[in-house]
């Protein structure tokens, strides 16, 4: 194995996951501290409400607590698995309640004209969030992974379970849509 391979395969979570599998509460807290904020950010931007995002992240951790004892290091990076579980939880919720996202987007869009003169930061953020919600779920996930969480295309493609080429295609379409919908925010 080359040094680069070893670096790529090094998984800083392996020991913590093994300890969680043996019921170590301190390890569970350490894993939470490491991943909960990122998972919460992703879920919040994928879903319509804070409450839904919290439920989604809680369910993802429940899966982790249940499966940690059977985790096989070396197959996939733990973080990739955890974020994939989180994304799948988001997809499940979006498919169960497809109308909610659209309603929320419509509500926010109605607020936009009121903020036309002086775009307050909160109103702009709502507009961005509304534009995000109009993206198909995989495009939304792709753009959040790369432009909101700062992951590179390879990591994001692994989490989404697609090829890097497919990832780039998702990204290109998402960026174009966002640029069209938010073009009035030329100097955000």
């Amino acid at each position: 194995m080359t040094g680069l391979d070893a670096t790529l395969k090094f998984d800083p979570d392996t020991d913590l996951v093994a300890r969680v599998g043996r019921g170590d509460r301190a390890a569970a807290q350490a894993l939470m501290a490491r991943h909960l904020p990122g998972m919460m950010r992703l879920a919040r931007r994928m879903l319509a409400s804070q409450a839904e995002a919290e439920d989604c992240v809680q369910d993802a951790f429940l899966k982790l607590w249940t499966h940690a004892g059977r985790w096989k290091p070396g197959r996939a990076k733990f973080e990739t698995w955890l974020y994939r579980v989180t994304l799948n939880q988001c997809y499940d919720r979006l498919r169960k309640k497809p109308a909610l996202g659209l309603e929320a987007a419509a509500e926010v869009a109605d607020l936009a004209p009121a903020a036309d003169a002086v775009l307050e930061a909160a109103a702009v953020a709502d507009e961005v969030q509304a534009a995000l919600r109009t993206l198909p779920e995989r495009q939304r996930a792709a753009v959040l992974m790369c432009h909101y969480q700062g992951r590179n295309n390879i990591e994001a493609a692994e989490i989404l379970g697609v090829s890097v080429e497919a990832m780039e295609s998702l990204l290109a379409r998402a960026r174009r849509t966002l640029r069209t919908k938010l073009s009035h925010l030329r100097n955000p």
Partner: protein
Amino acid sequence: MTEDRNQEARFTDEVLGLLPTTPVPGALEARILADFDRIAAQRAPSVLVRAFWRWRDSLWPGAPLWKPASVLALSLAIGVMAGVLIPASDLAASTSSDQQYAAADDPPVVNMAGDL
């Protein structure tokens, strides 16, 4: 074309940078840890198993079970092989040699009557 794509990427970075940070409520952390406690309680191993894990971790921290187990098995195998393969005559020889040393260490027997 590439320049256009770069502009779109920069624009996306900028607009997503406008989104506020998402808070992680303490209540959510408490709920997640409560789930952990519930599942850990369901699967709690017996006192003996936990004691074994502690002993194993003190012996060889963080290693999978097969490592200390294989080292112990190897040591046992070497011991058994030594016991079986070393000829018994060698052992006997070393024992008689010990006896000679022991005899040499015994106090000398002096027959006073014979000398007179």
